[in-house]
């Protein structure tokens, strides 16, 4: 990358990305940067545009607003097509092909094809190579689709709810395979999911999208370290005034107790207990509070984007 301001190469950059249909916005004002080599969780409520974002990156959809680049290239280019693999939610495969024929198709279509990696993934699940896709279970089909995506040896892997139809054992095993492959090859992974607990320890990068654009983006360590979970006794209605000079993400009260997730703007002093939130607590707080001020850490900002806002200035 020519810009010295950025640490490392960008796998994906979105600039004011939007998708508008007649019925309304499917994705709106989405700007963020995903550095190469990260494993990124894409989180948001239903209808926030996660699938739309992944489909634009995979060049299945053209955005109506803004733009997106993959390793500095447009999604439709030969170069980014070669370096990117997309695993769509419905796992489209030719139903009348056998597993072996499906992998053969992958080999024919992709110059950098890795037959062994693909076969290993299929074999690990004991999926017979001569079985027709139409006869496979949902989990087996997912496995073949994952094998097809990995066989391509992509630099960027786009996964839309990859584990949704898998049982817990297979889910754990596929996640292990995914992380092992990614660790060996330095693959960047962008993965949407609803299962927040699944992201903990798996992702080192997070992007949260909802109605108004990107709400939270950055390295997990950075995001965690700037948030504090405060628990204490209520003073009258609502929060203690002394917490007022911190940035409030979410607060809840139950009985005499309050719990607040804040971004401290200085030392947090008071008769309260403070704790680091876990990833699920952090994500839930942002998902529950659409009005909380967004946070895009410097690594996750694209050029011209101001700290802590979701808008593109230029």
């Amino acid at each position, binding site marked *: 990358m020519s810009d010295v301001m950025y640490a490392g190469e960008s796998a994906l950059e979105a600039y004011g990305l939007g998708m508008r249909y007649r019925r309304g916005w499917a994705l709106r004002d989405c700007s963020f940067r995903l550095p190469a080599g990260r494993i990124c969780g894409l989180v948001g409520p239903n209808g926030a545009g996660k699938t739309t974002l992944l489909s634009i990156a995979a060049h299945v959809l053209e955005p109506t607003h803004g733009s997106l680049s993959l390793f500095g290239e447009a999604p439709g280019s030969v170069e980014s097509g070669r370096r990117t693999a997309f695993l769509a939610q419905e796992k489209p495969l030719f139903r009348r092909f056998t597993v072996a024929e499906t992998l053969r198709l992958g080999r024919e279509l992709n110059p950098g094809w890795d037959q062994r990696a693909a076969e290993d993934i299929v074999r690990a699940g004991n999926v017979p190579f001569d079985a027709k896709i139409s006869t496979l279970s949902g989990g087996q089909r997912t496995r073949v689709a994952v094998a097809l995506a990995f066989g391509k040896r992509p630099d960027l892997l786009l996964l839309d709810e990859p584990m949704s139809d898998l049982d817990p054992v297979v889910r754990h095993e596929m996640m*292990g395979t995914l*992380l092992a492959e990614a660790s060996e090859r330095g693959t960047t992974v962008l993965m949407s999911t609803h299962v927040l607990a699944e992201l903990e320890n*798996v992702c080192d990068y997070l992007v949260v999208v909802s109605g108004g654009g990107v709400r939270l983006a950055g390295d997990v360590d950075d995001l965690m370290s700037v948030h504090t979970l405060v628990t204490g006794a209520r003073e009258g209605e609502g929060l203690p005034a002394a917490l007022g000079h911190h940035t409030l993400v979410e607060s809840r009260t139950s009985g005499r107790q309050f719990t607040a997730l804040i971004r401290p703007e200085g030392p947090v002093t008071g008769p309260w207990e403070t704790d680091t939130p876990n990833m699920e607590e952090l994500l839930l707080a942002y998902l529950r509070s659409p009005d909380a001020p967004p946070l895009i850490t410097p690594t996750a900002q694209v050029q011209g984007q101001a700290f802590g806002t979701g808008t593109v200035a230029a």
Partner: protein
Amino acid sequence: MVTVEYRIDRRSGVPAFQQIVQQTKQALRLGVLVPGDRLPTAKEVAEVSTVNPNTTLKAYRELEREGLVEPRPGQGTFVRRTLGRPETGTDSPLYGELVAWMAKAAGAGLEQDDVTALVASAMDKQYAAGTTAATGSTGATTTRSSTGE
């Protein structure tokens, strides 16, 4: 040969990299790991425990800083020295005294949680001054070195 398998508790609130550090030290203390052993690679940990490889590498860097392990390029991360001492083995007199004390506590009707609280409290009192915190490193973000692109 994989010598240890990390058990990552996702609900404990302890960051995964610290759990790896702690479990490695525990293995060193108990003699499960001895000098010359190779720690599992980030890929192996990822596969078995579904932990982000950067997390494992961060833990190994921490262990390296403490002089317990050393990376050998192209081969992996190896144990340099052990934490085991005669006093920490289960055949040491200190352990015997502790077992006797536990029996006394149980005899006095204490529950497991009461004992844990007492031990933690006494430990805090004794060791509070010299704690070496290995907590939340901020700033430096971890990245895998992506292999030849």
